[in-house]
Every structure is written in structure tokens, then in C-alpha cells.
């Protein structure tokens, strides 16, 4: 018995040693050296709720193994981060953000990532930014009221913007920032080509949204969009997939039109000026691992960003995961190159629409 224990100990020690040796030259997503961060503290910042709970659960292995003390803070606010960076007192070590900020403030608020310290080999193509790796994937999908449209359901965003053929109340994400993909779809309806969009075209796109009329609902929170579906107050809704899934689970008689669903994601970043950059990298690398991503998907129903991940989810959740081959074919990716430099202009014009002008 004693021998056996020593044997296991030796194997474990060997494993840790090779793991450590590996970590020296090439990191593997999801792996962290035993006890490597003992006595250190990391603050992880995200958007709270079941999402951040799920992220914390996904990081539990990392915490247990590395011995780090993980603090959770939030919600993410870029203005708060800016104040920290400017005062030289950055207390947020790893920050989960929206789609665009890591591109807009790359190098200013967010560190350019050293990809030799991360294993990004399992991340879906085109999602690693200069200053970010994805935190998860989700979609913005057109949900319609099955009872209202019966045999003639809307099939695309063009139908969403067509109030002649498809009368009814629309619900749009009014939580703050414009959704680039939606404006591109609106611009298409106005007869334009999103690939060749100019700043002046933002107005044309916003006009298409404005033409939906005064009955249009701009929901402020994900919870509100879900409530609009469950109470049936909107006939067609632009919804986040997680909320759409929950609404359908709760009995909303809505169905998704998947054509050109808008690909969106949250990003993981390391702010400029964090005290222990290597510890932050270790967290990121652990987060990208297969197991961590499976836990995340099972707890939050968001789509994992490690292509090996096989989360065990029930059918209602699986119906809204966006990483299946079919969904990947139908997805619409926004014109990042256009929106990053024009973020402020678009936000300004979108805010004016939101303020009733």
C-alpha cells in the first residue's frame, strides 16, 4: 500500500514536472502548474449574474491547482477601467468585455497579447484579436411569434425591416451600443453593400431602423427582451441566443429565423498596467481549456470557444448553440474593419435614435 502510494506520488510529481517543463516553452490551453500562483491574488471582472457565476465555475480547477486567490468584480465598465489605467492603479487583472472595446482601445487600455504565453490553437478561426481572445460565442437572432405569422414566417432581416409584408411590433436591442451587424443588414435593405459601407451610410442604415415606426420597442436589458417574448408584446424580436433559449424554455411561442444570425462574442482581455501579467496570462490560458469551456457552456448555455469542448446540455440548450456546422454556415459576421474606427460616430448616431430623434 505504501509502495503504491509512493508510486502514485512519483507519477504525479513526474506529471507536474513535465507539465512545468511544457509550460516553459509551449502553453497548453487549460493547464496550469500546480501551486504556481500560491499567495497571489487575481481579480476577474465580468458582467455578473449566471454568466459570471459560470465563468467562476469554469475557473475553479485553475484556482484549486494554482493556489491563486480569485476575486470577482463587476460589471465591466470601460470608463472605470480607463480611470484605473490613467491613475496607474489597475486592480482589474482580467476583464471580460463586449465585442469592440478591445479593438477600439487596443494598446491604450488593453495589452497587446503575447501569443507565446497562450494556447489559442482550439479557438475558432478569426476570433483572436491583437488585444483579446474570445470569452464565449453567442448570437443575435431574429425571433418571431409563431402564432402571429403561422404559415408565412419571416425568414431574414429583410423581412424584419418589411412592415408591409410583415406587420407587427418589433423589438430591438436598445441596451446601449449599436449592433454593427444589424446596421449592416439594415443598410442592405436600403440597397447598399455592407462591404463598401461609408460613414455617411450609417445614417441610411439608421433611417431603415427609424422607419419601423413609433411602436418599435427598444429593450434595455436581456431580461426585458425575454419578458417581451414571454408576454407576447412584440411580434418580432432581435434577441441574444441565451435569452431566446430561456424564453422558449419558459413557454414563449417564438421560433428563430437563423438566416444571417449575427455572430457576436465577449472578449477576454488583460488591461495595461496590471501588477502581475504572467498570472493574468495563466488565468486566460486556463480559461481557454476544454474542460473549462465545457463547464462554462453547461452553466451558462453560451457557446464554448474551444473546438474540442463537448458540453453535456439538453436539447433546448443545444438548439441555440451556435457552433454547429449548419449555424456556422448561416452566421453573419460584421465588418469589423469598418466599425472599429467608426465606433464613436455610430454610437453618437445610434444614441440620437435611442433618444427619440
Amino acid at each position: 500500500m505504501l509502495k503504491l502510494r509512493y508510486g502514485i506520488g512519483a507519477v504525479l510529481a513526474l506529471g507536474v514536472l513535465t507539465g512545468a517543463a511544457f509550460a516553459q516553452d509551449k502553453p497548453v490551453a487549460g493547464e496550469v502548474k500546480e501551486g504556481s500562483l500560491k499567495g497571489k491574488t487575481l481579480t476577474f471582472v465580468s458582467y455578473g449574474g449566471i454568466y459570471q457565476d459560470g465563468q467562476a465555475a469554469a475557473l475553479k480547477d485553475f484556482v484549486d491547482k494554482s493556489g491563486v486567490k480569485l476575486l470577482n468584480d463587476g460589471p465591466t465598465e470601460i470608463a472605470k477601467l480607463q480611470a484605473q489605467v490613467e491613475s496607474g492603479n489597475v486592480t482589474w487583472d482580467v476583464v471580460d468585455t463586449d465585442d469592440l472595446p478591445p479593438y477600439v482601445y487596443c494598446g491604450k487600455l488593453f495589452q497587446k497579447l503575447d501569443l507565446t504565453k497562450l494556447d489559442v490553437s482550439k479557438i475558432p478561426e478569426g476570433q483572436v484579436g491583437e488585444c483579446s481572445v474570445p470569452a464565449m460565442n453567442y448570437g443575435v437572432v431574429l425571433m418571431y411569434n409563431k402564432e402571429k405569422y403561422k404559415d408565412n414566417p419571416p425568414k431574414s432581416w429583410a423581412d424584419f425591416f418589411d412592415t408591409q409584408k410583415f406587420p407587427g411590433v418589433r423589438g430591438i436591442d436598445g441596451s446601449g451600443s449599436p449592433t454593427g451587424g444589424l446596421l449592416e443588414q439594415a443598410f442592405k435593405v436600403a440597397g447598399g453593400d455592407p462591404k463598401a459601407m461609408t460613414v455617411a451610410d450609417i445614417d441610411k442604415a439608421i433611417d431603415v431602423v427609424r422607419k419601423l415606426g413609433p411602436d418599435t420597442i427598444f429593450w434595455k436589458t436581456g431580461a426585458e427582451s425575454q419578458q417581451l417574448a414571454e408576454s407576447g408584446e412584440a411580434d418580432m424580436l432581435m434577441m441574444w441566443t441565451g435569452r431566446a433559449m430561456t424564453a422558449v424554455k419558459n413557454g414563449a411561442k417564438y421560433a428563430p429565423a437563423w438566416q444571417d444570425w449575427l455572430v457576436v462574442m465577449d472578449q477576454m482581455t488583460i488591461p495595461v498596467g496590471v501588477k502581475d501579467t504572467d498570472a493574468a496570462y495563466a488565468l486566460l490560458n486556463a480559461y481557454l481549456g476544454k474542460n473549462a469551456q465545457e463547464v462554462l457552456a453547461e452553466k451558462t448555455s453560451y457557446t464554448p470557444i474551444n473546438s474540442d469542448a463537448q458540453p453535456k446540455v439538453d436539447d433546448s440548450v443545444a438548439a441555440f448553440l451556435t457552433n454547429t456546422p449548419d449555424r456556422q454556415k448561416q452566421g453573419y459576421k460584421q465588418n469589423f474593419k469598418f466599425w472599429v474606427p467608426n465606433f464613436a460616430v455610430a454610437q453618437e448616431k445610434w444614441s440620437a435614435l435611442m433618444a427619440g430623434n
Partner: protein
Amino acid sequence: MSALEPTTPSAPQRAGWVWRPFALTLPALLLLVAVIGYPLLTIVLRSLSEPQWGMQNYAWFFGAPVNLTVLQRTFTISAWVTLVCVVCAYPYAYLMTAVGPRVRLVLVLCVLIPFWVSGVVRTLSWVILLQDSGVINSLLRSAGFDGIRLIRTQTGVVIGMAQVLLPFMILPLYSVMKGIDLRLMRAAQSLGARPSRAFFTVYLPLSLPGVYAGAIIVFILALGFYITPALLGGPRSTMLSTLVQTQVLSLLQWGRGGAMGVVLLVTTFVLLALAAPVMRSRHRDVGRR
């Protein structure tokens, strides 16, 4: 005789009487300077210095029609909220002075208990009441009427804000009304005034200081409301704080956000300065009658 005359306090003692209250207010003054004065100064400075020194943020504010529309709307909504609060609070505060202590306690609790519940929770309860499939509309429909759009309208925002702010109106009104001697009304009636006349010439003017105090508090608090218009309103009831939030939190334009705050503050001061003579002269009239 001279021995009975009160001795006049000596000069240094008198100076002490003047300064002692100031010394006692020092903690409050320091706190105000630290948590209001300094941040406010920073906001003013940033509105003038970011991205570079100059008036660009103010030029931007007055150059964008949406800002002016929303500024005007912010004042309009606040005025409506104040009016609704006065109309609702006046009879309620009067009732509080007219009933016995036990009923008064119940009335006070009715005001204070919602006051202790967070504004967000109260606003969300209004969502449940006001939404198209909500309580009010279900009742209307079951009574055979058409439903009405309440949520995401200015009406809905005014209702929600007025409920949240009502205690700020009732409490100052009550504190003034309870000091009014109700025998004055009886005296007026004994001199031949009809009850309505007695109310308008005696009671109402005496209660006006309470109305003004409450109205000013409610109006100023309403100007800065954020959560309630965000949750109960639609695009046409967006208030200035929402625009400030967009500038600061999503565009990191602290200068513009600051300028918006300063414009709101200055406009409020101007309005109050305009209203002050009206309030004061009315008050003096009461003394004359």
C-alpha cells in the same frame, strides 16, 4: 433700576456666539466640500480641458439638436412629475394633520415603507403594472375597455417617477401643515367666508412654503433621474442622464459628459433664481393678510 437691567454681553463673547455654530457645522462643511465640491470642480474642469482646453464640449452640446431636445424634455418631464406630486401629496399631507395619532402613524408608514424599498425594485413593480399585458391593462380589458399604452411612454415615466418621489413632497408639506393653526379656518368662517374661500385665502397661502420646499426637492431630484426613465420609458422619454451615461461609459468622453452635467446644473440654477422672487413675494403676502 439699573441693577435690574440685563447686562449686555461683552464683545468677544458675542463674536463667540456667531462663530460657534460655524464651528459645529465644520464636519458637514468638510464633507460637502470633499464629496460634492471637489468632484463638481473636477467635472467643470474636465468639461473645459478635454480633449484640449476650450469650449469645444459646450459648442458640441449646443450644436447637436438631440441634446437640446432631450434637455428640454428633461425639464418638461420633471415639471410634470412635480405637478403630479403636488396634486397627490397635498390632500394626503392635509389628512395626516387632521386625523388622530394612530391613523397618522399608519399614514406615515404608508409613505415611509415604499421609501425604504430600493427605487429599482419599485420601478420594476411599475413595469409589471404598466406593461401592455400588465395588471392595469388586463383590468381595463376585462372591464370591456381597450388597453392603453402606458409603458415606454412619457405618461408611464411620469407615473413611475412621481411615485418614487412622492415622499419628498409629502414630508415637507406635512411638517409645514402641522404648524398651521386650524382655528384660523374656523375664524375665517365665523367672519363669513365660505369654506372654499377660507381655504384659498387662509390655509393655502400658509401651506405654500411647504409646497415650494417639496416642489423644489422633487423637481431637482427628478432632473437627475436615470433608472426609472430607462426602464419605464422609450426613446421619446429619454432624459439627459441617459445621454451623459452614453458619453462617459461607452464613449469615454468625460469632457462632453461633464459639459452636459454643467449645462443641466446651470439651467437649474437659472430656473430657481427666476422662481425665487415669486416664492418670496407670495410668502410675504401671507404675512400682510
